């Protein structure tokens, strides 16, 4: 059938020495970039773009795409090993992944993250192949009102994320929403809560915030007690996930992949939203929600699969309609243009070699990534054996350089340190940080889309109900909010607060 011919054609295109080499270089660079915090795929692609000016288009795109999804693999490594999320999407992996590392299970955590990402990547490529064009049209139908309603549903997700007191989770969420309002309001142009500090005009940077809240605060937490040599409570046992791990992770991976894929199609911080959503979903369907946050492998498998699948999903609007979903895909778009490839519905027909070659390269890239990352697990686990008194300064070095390399801003480094102190204090009082991060990410978007929708409707709130997709989301939100399954505010969900 026709699809099979396309795949064959794509494989033929891919299996030339040049394209294969570029695919490998791309995923290798992507992994490295993903492990280093701060220096994200955007910067890496921007750096390498000029180098591709004179290389053939197909090879260039294959390489640049490889950097993008390769970076997703690397991002989980530091989250698991040292509680430093390389980017917002990896924050969730810190929650259970790091706990697993502390229990001597870093190997299985890294392993399941790698395998989960591989399976998710593969599923999303299949999805890309099969249903790209109609899905893209669907994505276009999402305007500000739909995004608002969708985000509102996301707020309900927020409530599922915490495991302790709802009151405290809400406090953190509201705090996150507040921090999100800092900066220049894009709708009116006025500055909010910036106090004349120029570096705050664009808002509080997400990377400094999460690196401070997770990475730095963890170090400070450990420094508080006498600096022990080993912070890991148990010796690293096996390096690979065992059969029980696989049994536990199978369905989370599948669910995460599907969820991440569909969320990835929508523009915006889809990998972050999908990893958070997957975590919430896994907690909801789990028979034992209390184990989340203490090293549950489902808390790593699902979200890791989700954020990788989101990456694949974000290629759909890019390749079929030329719509960039985030900064990275926007760069890839620029790369297309420089190579004379016009993005849009005609891309598949005018440049079939590019489209199918890239699709096949994503399969191959995922396989390469798996092969690359698995042996590295043994290496990474050794990192944890470095005595902590030597490790923690290196972790801080890592964070400082990572944040600084983003925008060469001393202010952001200072911000990270501030968040580190705050994160430490918050943890002392047993506040959870995940709701804060999610609020930071989607808070500004909720407000933005609400106001944009009202401008478009010239003040009428009925716009949310008149449009079918938006109405559906609102209905679901209301149902969930008032359903008997929602935890009540007064009571805590667990024994302690």
């Amino acid at each position, binding site marked *: 059938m026709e699809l099979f011919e396309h795949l064959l054609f794509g494989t033929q295109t891919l299996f030339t020495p040049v394209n294969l080499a570029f695919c490998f270089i791309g995923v290798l660079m992507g992994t490295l970039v993903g492990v280093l915090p701060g220096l994200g795929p955007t910067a890496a692609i921007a750096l390498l773009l000029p180098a591709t*000016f004179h290389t053939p288009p197909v090879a260039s795109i294959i390489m640049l795409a490889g950097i993008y999804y390769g970076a997703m693999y690397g991002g989980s490594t530091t989250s698991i090993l040292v509680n430093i999320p390389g980017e917002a999407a990896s924050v969730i992996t810190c929650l259970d992944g790091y706990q697993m590392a502390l229990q001597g299970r870093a190997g299985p955590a890294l392993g399941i993250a790698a395998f989960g990402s591989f399976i998710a990547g593969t599923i999303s490529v299949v999805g890309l192949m099969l249903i790209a064009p109609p899905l893209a049209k669907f994505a*276009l139908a999402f305007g*500000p009102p739909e995004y608002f309603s969708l985000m509102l549903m996301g707020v309900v997700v927020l409530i599922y994320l915490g495991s302790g007191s709802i009151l405290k989770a809400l406090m953190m969420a509201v705090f996150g929403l507040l921090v999100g309002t800092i900066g220049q309001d894009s709708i009116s142009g006025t500055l909010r809560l910036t106090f004349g500090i120029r570096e705050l005009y*664009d808002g509080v940077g997400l990377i400094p915030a999460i690196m401070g809240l997770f990475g730095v605060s963890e170090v400070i937490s450990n420094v508080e007690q006498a600096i022990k040599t080993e912070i890991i409570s148990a010796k690293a046992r096996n390096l690979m996930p065992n059969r029980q791990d696989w049994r536990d992770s199978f369905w989370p991976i599948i669910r995460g992949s599907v969820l991440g894929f569909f969320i990835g199609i929508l523009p915006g911080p889809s990998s972050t939203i999908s990893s958070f959503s997957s975590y919430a979903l896994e907690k909801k369907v789990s028979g034992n929600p209390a184990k989340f946050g203490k090293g549950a492998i489902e808390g790593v498998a699902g979200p890791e699969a989700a954020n990788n699948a989101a990456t694949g999903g974000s290629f759909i609007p890019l390749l079929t309609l030329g719509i960039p979903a985030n900064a990275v895909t926007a760069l890839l778009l620029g790369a297309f243009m420089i190579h004379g490839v016009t993005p849009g519905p005609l891309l598949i027909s005018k440049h079939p070699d590019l489209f199918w070659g890239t699709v096949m390269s994503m399969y191959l890239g995922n396989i390469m990534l798996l092969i690359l990352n698995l042996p590295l697990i043994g290496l990474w686990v050794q990192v944890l054996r470095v005595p902590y008194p030597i490790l923690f300064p290196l972790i801080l070095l890592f964070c400082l350089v990572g944040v600084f390399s983003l925008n060469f*801003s001393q202010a952001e480094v200072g911000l990270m340190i501030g968040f580190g102190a705050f994160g430490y204090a918050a943890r002392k009082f047993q506040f959870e940080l995940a709701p804060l991060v999610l609020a930071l990410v989607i808070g500004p978007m909720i407000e933005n889309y609400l106001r944009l929708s009202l401008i478009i409707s010239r003040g009428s709130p009925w716009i949310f109900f008149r449009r079918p997709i938006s109405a559906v989301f609102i209905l679901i939100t209301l149902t969930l909010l008032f359903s008997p399954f929602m935890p009540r505010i007064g009571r805590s969900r667990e024994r302690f607060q």
Partner: protein
Amino acid sequence: MKRVFFLLVGFFLFPASAVASDYPTKPIDVIVAYAAGGGTDVGARILAKVAPKYVSQPLVIVNKPGAGGEVGFMALAQAKPDGYTIGFINPPTIVMLPFQRKVGYKMSDFKYIINIMEDVGCLSVRTESKYKTLEDFIKDARQKPGEVTVGNAGAGSDAHMTAVDIARRANISVTPVPFKGASEARTAVMGGHVDAVVMKVGEAKPYVESNQIRILGVAAGERLKDFPQVPTFREKGILTAMTTTRAIAGPSGIPVAAVKYLHDQLKKTMEDPEFIELTQKTGVYVKYMTAEEYKKYIDGLEQTYGPMWKEMGKK
């Protein structure tokens, strides 16, 4: 004896020619006031890629994004004027910021070297739109004041100002919808969530080619080579002409010899076919302007935007 004589002569002559003959002796930092991957950044990297053919030292791109460009512009204004730090300036944004709020630089802090690129503003709709020509749009807006929605790249952005200017001169009243960037605005118009969008031709071009966007009018002095069938606003009696340019400038104390060297060598870079080809692929036009011409251009912008912003009732 003769040898010593010549050596001495050379020794004394050397300092006089020092600046002119041995600049540059180390890499030159080029400040880009926006994040890696954005339009200005990619353009800068293209320049840095082709420049080694003409400039003896590498151009190192340093991204200093923030505050809508202010962080980078300030960094340039305050940089050491030794010829080893230059940067891209982006009018009209750089000109408009001082009107919108207190900023850490003045236009007089910069010494213009050469203008490299230009991008023209345009009004576009999606191909499925009922507006086939500029007249359709204006007619509809006149009949339904305030109902037609026009997306732009954010409050206070040049796209926003262009939209306001067009509306003012065409005597229509539209509702501006400020998105968080041109990309979002463009996606919104393609999805039919707003009726039209004001953005730069560079941002629209690939989508015109793929038949998703139709440009109704361009804000240039004369019709564009790439779109000869699209009228300029001027032709239709709307006397607006809003372009964005990207020029290289240095801090105001930069040595004359460095300015001359950079100007001459970068001009050659701009005329290099590889540079022209790559730049056009990103949708912007190569446009040379001398420093004097550029100063006149900037002054003109200040005179247009200052009063306009006040009129718009902000601050």
